[in-house]
């Protein structure tokens, strides 16, 4: 199958790649753009390890075709920190030991950021339901939920 030229924006950078029309956005990010921070855990939209934002909306990049990225803006875990300055969620995940193997972490961070962008003051239940599409098999979610709540509190403090 002949490839299609795609121009898109990833983490603010203009990028181009050639995609087989059958390839997912996840395949294109990982295999064509070398952005391997976004992970594949299932390929069926069940685990959330491939979470990215597409024009600001949280999506599973394994359920989006690469060619659908044409002209869109994509955000991945690689774009969360600003230079050496980690996003508060990234810092709080380390501080709270909210990761063990770390494989689900990029997806959780991208999903949690999408939550806090919409709702800066979520309840524990809101955090748990928002993140119910992201599977973690190591932590039992306790420390992840705490890290997200703590990051939200810090960001609210900074916003005052």
């Amino acid at each position, binding site marked *: 199958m002949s490839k299609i030229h795609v121009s898109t924006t990833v983490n603010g950078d203009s990028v181009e790649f050639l995609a087989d029309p059958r390839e997912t956005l996840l395949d294109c990010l990982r295999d064509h753009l070398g952005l391997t921070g976004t992970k594949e855990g299932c390929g069926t939209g069940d685990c959330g390890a491939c979470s990215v934002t597409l024009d600001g909306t949280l999506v599973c990049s394994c359920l989006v075709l690469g060619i659908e990225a044409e002209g869109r803006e994509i955000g991945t875990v690689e774009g969360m920190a600003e230079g050496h300055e980690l996003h508060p969620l990234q810092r709080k995940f380390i501080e709270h*030991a909210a990761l063990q193997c770390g494989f689900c972490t990029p997806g959780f961070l991208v999903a949690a950021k999408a939550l806090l962008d919409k709702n800066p003051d979520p309840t524990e239940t809101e955090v748990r339901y928002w993140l119910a599409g992201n599977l973690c098999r190591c932590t039992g*979610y306790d*420390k992840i939920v705490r890290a997200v709540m703590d990051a939200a509190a810090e960001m609210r403090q900074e916003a005052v």
Partner: protein
Amino acid sequence: MAKDEFNQYRLVGTRPDRPDGLDKVTGRARYGADISAPGMLWGAVVRSPHAHARIVKIDTSKAEALTGVKAVVTRADFPTGLTGDEWDLQENTMAGEKALYDGHAVAAVAATSKLRAEEAARLIEVEYEVLPHVVHVDEAIKPDAVVIREGAALPSVPEGMPPNVVRYFENGRGDLEAGFAAADLVMEKTYKTEATHQGYIEPHACLGQLGADGKGEMWVCTQGHWYIRKMCADVLGLEKSQLRVTPSEIGGGFGGKTTIFMEPLSLALSRKAGGRPVKIVMSRSEVLRATGPTASASMDVKIGMTKDGMLTAGHVEFRMQGGAFWGAPVDMALDCAFAPYKMPAVMHIGYDVLANRPKAAAYRAPGSPMAAFAVESLIDEMCRELGLDPLEMRLKNAVREGDKSSYGPKFKKIGLVETLEAAKAHPNLSAPLGPKQGRGVAAGFWFNHGGETSVTVALSEDGTVTVSAGTPDIGGSRASIALMTAETFGIPYENVRVNIVETGALGVNEPTHGSRATFATGKAAVEASNAAIKEMCRRAAVEWGIDPEAVEWVDGAVRPAGPNAGKFPPMSIAEIAGNMGDTGGPISGHHEGNLSGYGASFGCHVVDVEVDPETGRTTVLRYLVVQDAGRAIHPAYVEGQYQGGAAQGIGWALNEGYVYGDDGRLQNSVFLDYRVPVASDLPMIDTVIVEVPNPGHPFGVRGVGETGIAPPLPAIANAIHSATGTRLRDLPMNPPSVLAAMKAQRNG
């Protein structure tokens, strides 16, 4: 170290940031599928759609004719003549005469792109003669069951056993008859657990390269790269030292990444494709169908108890299937069954049975959760019958230092009593329960493990320290090893870097399994650090012209041991390291051995649930894990192990389980259908770390990873009983089965 027993450490017991944290929150950490190589090909595997079938013919011609296809391999490309475990591994890697389970690999292909490889795999035509199959243990153990493999029984199986029994266990002690006669209550019940999968979020992935000269390299996500090296070399007939295996970061393992699956296929494809590297990444469906889940079990338990709660005798008969090869963890399940209790008389009987399912791999405390479900459930039923408090009853029977264990050896220093006492004192025990709510209690046990370990500690020119370790870090072990090393040297935590190095850099290391990484690698790192310290003392002695015994190491520096040793200013590790080129060359320490001294770990879980009588859905309201860590080197990651084990156990209890159709195919091979707990299913998981130091470790470490998965299964069954008055003896206790049990109870 003659310091107070508690809080005597500068770093051990603190919670610094983990050294790999930054890489893991920025997406920089490189896991199994994150590496590519020049000239790389992609591999894809053709798998049997049948549970049991004779392979009549494999036609690879159409696949080979496809542009971009560089190699196709079948079993014909593997060496012949293997026996025993090596044959089992080879047969599981690639089917020979028969496909033995749904998902069994029958061929593999390498091509220039992932899509091309998948296309080529679809063009491989396999002709099967479908055979009758059996997937459930109680059917597989019948004398007239479908025979899965003739002659597969190991020597432990007596004459006349059913054909699929491949291992048989029988051991016990004491006068069983007298024990049951002395009891006021004897109960006997049957319990069943379904197979579950470790469910690590990272699918298996590797990048293998093998030349015609027999030299090869592999990048792979694994819990143990020396195991990968040995097993791949055995299956392919290679010299082990010619294969260099580098572990990637690992996205969870829980025991499931301690063996090989598609790794030898990447090497075989590479060799056939002129040595081009071949990357294979499994899909989730391949992971669930064709890698090692745990065993399923059918278990009879009989227990005798006096009316004041003393155990008098126990008898278990466990039947487990672990797929089409021996390896169901029956032996360990038997040993765990009564391990928490003083048993005057005990008998264990076990059967390891073949079935048409994937070859079981280890899963967190293999065997212990099944055994705990059976024994801890029956104990709870008996406590109810006799009106006994389940914690007090367990305290009465709890094993202590010096007691002979149910499985043989005497316990050294252990902390079960302290664990039960801490559970009893926790505020969750006094939280009020509403209607439809119930509380369940259960204990759990794991042996822990030492094992083959080799570690090198080397000084850098600036006095900072590099540790070369061989146990992949799954849950923060680099942090704990760095803490212990820095504590030993008396230097800052940040001055130690722990690297998990490839197979060429150290002697053989067992995997990160058996809860051994912080225990064994940590112990070896401390010993290696002490060797380096000894060398630094020797060099200072030479410089000062005094006896090496007159030099001591305090707070990261050498100094004369006393006023008689002479007056010299202390020399720091940085000063010694800065001059080491002039004082005799590099300074390092090394330690290796088959490490002993590991100490058993006990836990106690308390769970409160609410059961919806309309739907049968169980909600976990409160969850408490209490466990003896020996010593928590980095308490945050110890809590993490407790919470993670509990969550996996909750999943096993309430929802997870392999579902097979009448055709013997796995019906829930994606995460939508094989549903693991999500964030909205769980409450916060409370933890209490009990510390009864293990005398076999320099800091008292026992190992914390595994015990925590065993108690949730019975604790939740016990809580559901409290909430509903209904006893469930089969897992999973999902809404339909709870609802059916409640209905049966009402109608019964």
